[in-house]
């Protein structure tokens, strides 16, 4: 609830004190921020009768001075330019400006300069600078996510933008929570270190007044880790509802666009999957595919019961009851068809791509040992005609990540087979991945085979057997969180920034993954939060990844790195 309610509070406060008809003007980033937490009907209740984007509103010349304008923008130089133009030719009666992060003095100066007609009533900073997709999961929706992979020398200015956006987003989260954290980061990652230090500078030096909140006994912990510490999780195919929809179809700002996978009637082309608004989704978002099927069947049966009773209209009473219940009935109908459509489409995709077969091997590669068996399985799947290119690539990557040190000859064989089979495969992508996220580059124990304790734990798990072969994988994040709960997060692996130090366990932890989070990881977070361990975890990242996005980032980074190498 925490993140969603924080952003909702900000939006509520923006609109509450302004009476009369309003127009809300957003930019392309704040549209996502507001849309995931506030609905159109709620805006209408607050008398906001028009919502526009800032670049489209500058094109129109109609004067609407009976409306009061509420602007909610990110404080970028582009937005300031738009604002300046609009203030010099004001179209609305009053202007209330809200910015989602800290304004520089020069920017305020520029705005004041353009406000000749003195239409601006207030200028405020409301720190809702992150997209709260779930109660404990936020993202920054960064369009060019791949810069984290490249070393600083390649493209320093874009990397600086990347880091600035990350620091802004993290700062906004803590301002919304009104806390100032102790900061730790992943040892092996330069970019995590950089973001950690810049965040510390922001919170403790540059804006230390703003961040100076009442101190509780335990400061919260901000842990900045790198996606490359766990490259396995985004590559795996998922079998729990929310993660699966994102992996097979794609969720953006809690919306699913079905137009890319087939023809649908108008009202089913785009659907909303939000745990706040959809009770069925909230109950089933972390359930696995088999259980979802059963629950959906139950929901459809209930609905059919209701529909049948609605057809039995014989007396006036029945008619009255029908009209009474009609809105509920319509909502239920929409909800049922949405979930049925989603599950049907996903079943089709699973069938086409033979994902049950592929995923079994993937899970084995990620969780269990046995190099010889793994090699055979991967080779068989590579030879299988019905396996798609992207699945082949993922299998080889997973194999390479696990067995890069053992039997390099067989690894080479797999590379060659992959190159010969997949026409679209970009040469050397797997090697690039290994260079970035290989065993030497990772912090932590991804496969549980470095630490003696982890080996023992794995053996115990192997003996006990797993409930479900397809969901046996636990992301590395889960182990990290468990270490934090036990108070045993190693200083060697995750050093503190500066002279911060913390004895004992924090009560609130924000984990920021540079490079993006996955829904599988947000599921682990939600489950740990529900288990009352005494610590509240919040997860955030620069984007929400699925395997397609992760591979795209790798490809783009590889392209730039290659281009750079050629230049040099």
């Amino acid at each position, binding site marked *: 609830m925490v993140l969603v309610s924080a952003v909702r509070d900000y939006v509520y406060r923006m609109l509450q004190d302004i009476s009369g008809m309003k127009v809300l003007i957003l930019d392309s980033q704040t549209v996502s921020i507001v849309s995931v937490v506030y609905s159109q009907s709620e805006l209408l209740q607050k008398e906001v009768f028009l919502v526009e984007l800032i670049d489209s509103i500058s094109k129109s010349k109609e004067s609407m001075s009976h409306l009061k304008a509420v602007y909610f923008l990110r404080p970028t130089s582009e937005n300031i330019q738009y604002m300046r133009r609009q203030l010099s030719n004001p179209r609305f009666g009053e202007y209330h400006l809200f910015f989602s992060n800290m304004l520089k003095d020069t920017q305020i100066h520029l705005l004041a300069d353009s406000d000749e007609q003195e239409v*601006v009533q207030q200028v405020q900073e409301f720190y809702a600078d992150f997209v709260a997709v779930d109660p404990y999961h936020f993202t920054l929706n960064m369009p060019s996510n791949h810069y984290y992979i490249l070393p600083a020398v390649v493209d320093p200015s874009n990397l600086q933008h990347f880091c600035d956006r990350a620091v802004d987003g993290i700062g906004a989260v803590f301002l919304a929570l009104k806390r100032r954290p102790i900061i730790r980061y992943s040892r092996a990652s330069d970019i995590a270190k950089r973001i950690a230090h810049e965040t510390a500078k922001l919170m403790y030096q540059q804006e230390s007044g703003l961040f100076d909140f009442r101190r509780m006994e335990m400061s919260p912990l901000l842990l900045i880790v790198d996606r490359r510490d766990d490259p396995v999780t985004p590559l795996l195919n998922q079998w729990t509802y929310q993660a699966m929809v994102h992996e097979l179809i794609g969720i953006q700002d809690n919306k699913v666009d079905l137009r890319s996978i087939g023809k649908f009637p108008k009202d089913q082309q785009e659907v909303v999957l939000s745990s706040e608004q959809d009770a069925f989704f909230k109950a089933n978002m972390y359930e696995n595919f088999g259980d979802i099927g059963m629950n959906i069947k139950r929901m459809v049966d209930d609905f059919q019961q209701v529909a049948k009773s609605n057809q039995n209209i014989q007396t006036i009473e029945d008619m009255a009851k029908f009209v009474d219940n009609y809105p509920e009935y319509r909502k239920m109908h929409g909800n049922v068809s949405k979930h049925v459509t989603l599950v049907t489409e996903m079943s089709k995709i699973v069938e086409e791509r033979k994902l049950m077969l592929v995923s079994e091997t993937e899970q084995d590669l990620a969780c269990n040992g046995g190099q010889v068996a793994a090699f055979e399985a991967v080779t068989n799947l590579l030879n299988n005609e019905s396996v798609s290119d992207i699945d082949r690539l993922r299998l080889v990557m997973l194999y390479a990540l696990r067995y890069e040190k053992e039997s390099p000859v067989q690894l080479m064989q797999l590379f060659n087979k992959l190159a010969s089979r997949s026409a679209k495969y970009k040469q050397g992508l797997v090697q690039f991945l290994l260079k970035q996220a290989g065993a030497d580059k990772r912090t932590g124990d991804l496969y549980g085979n470095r630490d003696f304790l982890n080996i023992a734990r794995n053996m115990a798990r192997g003996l006990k057997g797993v409930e479900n072969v397809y969901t046996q994988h636990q992301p590395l994040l889960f182990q990290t969180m468990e270490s934090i709960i036990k108070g045993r997060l190693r200083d060697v692996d995750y050093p503190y920034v500066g002279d911060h130090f913390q004895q004992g366990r924090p009560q609130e932890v924000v984990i920021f993954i540079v490079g993006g989070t996955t829904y599988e990881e947000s599921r682990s977070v939600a489950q740990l939060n529900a288990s009352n361990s005494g610590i509240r975890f919040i997860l955030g990242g620069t984007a929400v990844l699925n395997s397609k996005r992760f591979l795209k980032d790798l490809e783009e980074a590889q392209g730039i790195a290659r281009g750079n190498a050629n230049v040099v």
Partner: protein
Amino acid sequence: MATRNRSLLFRKYRDALKSVRIPASSSASSAATKSSGGGPVIEMVSTSLLHPNRSYTPLSTEDPGNSSKGAVTVGLPPAWVDVSEEIAANVQRARTKMAELAKAHAKALMPSFGDGKEDQRIIESLTHEITNLLRKSEKRLQKLSASGPSEDSNVRKNVQRQLATDLQNLSMELRKKQSTYLKRLRQQTEGQDGVDLEMNINGNRPYAENDDLDDMIFSEHQMAKLKQNEALTVEREREIQQVVESVNELAQIMKDLSVLVIDQGTIVDRIDYNIQNVATTVEEGLKQLQKAERTQKQGGMVMCATVLVIMCFVMLVLLILKEIIF
């Protein structure tokens, strides 16, 4: 939840910049100019240096009284706003009347010594008033629709939606109140005597076994009681019928409104979806126009006319040829 108010700093900058813009030669301007010092010539020069692109507006067109306070005139709204305000007022009035109706319902259901006709009349009139208000508002609501994909039409559509939601909620509330009142009414009628004389509600007669015996010994006393109960039930039947009528009226209103109201939780309720749709409706309009143009050009009528004209010419030529040759 932390926020930071930059309005003070903003206003400070704005006032400072304003004092630089307005030259010191105007003595009627605010006190800020007194602090700018220097001669007016120097002021003007520095102003134009700071803002080379701005054409310097002579002071006479500026109204110092207006600008110095930052008082904003919210402009006069367009005509349709009156309609929406009228509907909003109706909704408010309907809400107060509903509260009164709830009280009247409660009073009527309480056991009383009188025959309760007064209460019934109050309830009837209140219900009628509310239904009328809702019906009137709904008709006026249709007037708010506008055509054409302009920003103003979006505002109108949204105002319409919000009022429609309010109206629908009110009608649903009214129906719920009425149906609970109906139910309680029926319960009361049933429980009035030991013998259940309402055939249409409950087909079974609980004391059917005793009837055979009772038939023989129908006394005067029981006849009188029967007559009284009959009258009462006729009365109640009429009331119930009236309530049912108003329920049906409301049902009609609800049906009309439901097209306007947004379903919560669906894609139509998303802000970003609505923003995108605005853009696409304008494009759609353009495409429709182009298509219409094309179809008109290709239109069957045009084809036919052209063909006929050509045929005419051909026939004419043939005729001439026939004359020439023969």
